[in-house]
């Protein structure tokens, strides 16, 4: 797909949106204010919090690097806002959180966002009711491929609370990496409070 902006401009935009320059250790134990929001969690084991994010409302944790395993917290995405940082708002605007959204719309929002951002074969596989931090939520699974041709699987748990979207996703290559850490992700997601 065509990328209408130069990498240099994107770099400057990314620089402006990247407050920290080093990745940080997330030790086991309670952690509050995830993704600059009311999201809290209690990881049972160590994670790495990446210095870069995918947007204003996100925070990324990983064990082996986000190409190999990636937990993304979307913390309180408000109405009219997109899940990820806009790269080409004029030609390829990302879908936004709507006032009329239901929790069943959350997987579609992620799917559409990923398709616009260039993910191929992005497909939602399963959906089921769930709870996130004591709120009604949706748990869903999906798969997609990026430009590196690696087949990736994903799992998400999302809710709408006070008109804002809270979502945590886990993505990893289908070979080896997804299964390696999915239990650790599920324990982390189960520990979330809002």
């Amino acid at each position, binding site marked *: *797909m*065509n*990328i209408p902006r*130069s*990498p*240099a401009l*994107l*770099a*400057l*935009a*990314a*620089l402006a949106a*990247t407050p920290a*320059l*080093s*990745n*940080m*250790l997330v030790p086991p134990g309670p952690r509050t204010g995830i993704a600059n929001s009311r999201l809290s969690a209690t990881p049972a084991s*160590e*994670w*790495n919090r990446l*210095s*870069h994010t*995918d947007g204003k409302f996100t925070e990324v944790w*990983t*064990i*082996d*690097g*986000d*190409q*190999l395993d990636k937990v993304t917290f979307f913390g309180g995405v408000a109405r009219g806002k997109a899940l990820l*940082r806009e*790269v*080409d708002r004029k030609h*390829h605007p990302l879908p936004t959180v709507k006032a009329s959204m239901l929790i069943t719309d959350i997987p579609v929002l992620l799917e559409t966002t990923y398709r616009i*951002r*260039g*993910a*191929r074969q992005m497909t939602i596989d399963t959906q089921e009711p769930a709870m996130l931090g004591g709120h009604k939520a949706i748990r869903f699974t999906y798969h997609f491929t*990026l*430009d*590196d*041709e*690696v*087949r990736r699987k994903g799992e998400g748990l999302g809710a709408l609370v006070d008109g804002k979207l809270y979502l945590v996703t886990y993505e990893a*290559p289908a*070979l*080896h*990496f997804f299964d*390696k850490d999915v239990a650790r992700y599920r324990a982390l997601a189960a520990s979330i409070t809002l």
Partner: protein
Amino acid sequence: MGQFRIVRGAVAFAALLVCAPLAAQEKTGIKPGFALRPGTARIVLMRPTILVGAQSIGGVNEPNADWTRQARENIALALRQAQANVGNAMVEYDEGASGEGPLATEYAQLFGALADSVIEYQFFAGNRLPTKKRNDSFEWSIGADLGKLRSLAAADYALFITTRDDYGSAGRKVLQMVAAMGGVGLKSGDHTGYAGLVDLRTGELVWLNADRQMGGDVRTAEGASKRVSQLLEGFPGKSSAAVNGAP
């Protein structure tokens, strides 16, 4: 190509702009304590992942089927010539009657992602993941299931090769010169090469040589030979001089 990769590159570039120590990048990693004595192991050379394209004036990479075909032929030949000098028995991957070819290809693609992650989060010391900083660790794995493939049953190690080249267009080169005159550094072309050895008993990556600024024009036989020499530089079990063809 998606914007996911573009944004990643942009962030890395931005980090480089403001954090000079990141530029001090390592290029080779080896699992502490790993050693491979000559003549002791059987290595399978997995089918290399080779992609060649052009880089437009705006930095967008466009695949080129002819260049990719040329590069595949040239690198395959260069690898065959290098096999005799790696110090251990090396054979090309053959799926035989196993039907595991597509899965082997998937592992080769996964190796590319693994190598990318090692470069970004281990070789760039300033960007290293905190959990990877301890005791000079080099703990990366592609998964033990690789070693369970029937087509790899007789092997001890798998050698993966990935190269991605994008040659700057004339317009891109002009832009690079103009930018240089204005004091701005601008890359024209990308030349990435990874070679990694995986222990098939454990799935561990025991050696990786990876560079995003490789030499050698893979569209020519001579350039591909140079590229393969670079890829196998420091290959375990044999000195780099021998890998390069010296006695």
